């Protein structure tokens, strides 16, 4: 994030100062004799960087320029905000859990066997999954829980091809933990 933003800041500043400089130049040219514009040009460089950061008074003289220019710029519609952080995880969790629930009967028929006398009647396994920005499953770990587990069932599930869990592209690597209840 920081690295991505760093190069754009000076570019934006330089671009902004150029607009300011041109606006100021054109504005002064329209108002003043032709001999005067050269006085306006030196004011552009100070508006580019340090003065803005330090609050030096130089840029204030050119505010009229960019404000007028901005007012003629058409409004750009923004795309709907994409969830991030906890909201994104919650969304991915919901979609991936629904996909896993849909596969539960198939997984159960492939790996669940009638329990022995000392084995639990049902188990819950943890599917620790990570999706890439496109929504492709790139990591999978299948964990058991201490309160009720069947090692043979877990080993069978790990031996199956990765489940196809279809979700919307999250836009960034996202890890969630899903629950698979069997039978």
């Amino acid at each position, binding site marked *: 994030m920081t690295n991505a933003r760093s190069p754009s800041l000076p570019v934006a500043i330089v671009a902004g100062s150029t607009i300011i400089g041109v606006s100021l130049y054109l504005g002064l040219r329209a108002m003043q004799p032709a001999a005067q514009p050269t006085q306006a040009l030196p004011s552009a460089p100070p508006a580019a960087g340090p003065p803005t950061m330090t609050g030096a008074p130089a840029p204030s003289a050119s505010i009229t320029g960019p404000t007028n220019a901005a007012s003629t710029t058409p409004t750009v519609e923004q795309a709907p905000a994409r969830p991030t952080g906890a909201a994104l995880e919650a969304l991915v969790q919901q979609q991936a859990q629904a996909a896993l629930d849909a596969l539960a009967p198939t997984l159960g028929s492939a790996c669940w066997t009638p329990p022995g006398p000392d084995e639990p009647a049902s188990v819950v396994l943890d599917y620790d999954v*990570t999706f890439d920005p496109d929504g*492709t*499953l*790139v*990591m*999978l*770990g*299948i*964990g058991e829980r*201490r309160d009720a587990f069947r090692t043979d069932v*877990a*080993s069978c599930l*790990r031996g199956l091809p*990765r489940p196809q869990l279809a979700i919307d592209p999250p836009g960034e*690597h996202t890890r969630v933990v899903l629950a698979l209840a069997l039978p």
Partner: protein
Amino acid sequence: MDSPSAYVFLGPTVSVTVAAGNTIHVTSTAVLGTTNITGATMSRLSVCHQPAAGGVLIDNDADWSVVRIPVNTSIPMAVSQRISGLAAGTYNVGMCYRMAAGQSGNWNDNDWVTSKVLVLL
């Protein structure tokens, strides 16, 4: 099971898909023990990776240790490894071992195995 000359995964593995240039960092912990009067020995304990399609388990950098414990002992054992230079693809990763013939039965007081995997892009 005994496996004197080839690695075998110990406990669950994690399925990881990597792109060329990615690095995998694996940390695995297992509580292993014995009640055997002569103790138990493992000739190699490490982290391994294997192409998802199958094949030989690979101990990256041959980063293994010998483990030997006395009777009535159960202790946590941890191994970690940084795996780089992998071709793009999907791999199984986890704790692995080699064991001399007759030794696997001596490891008879074991608990859970946990593996944590990070992919460094």
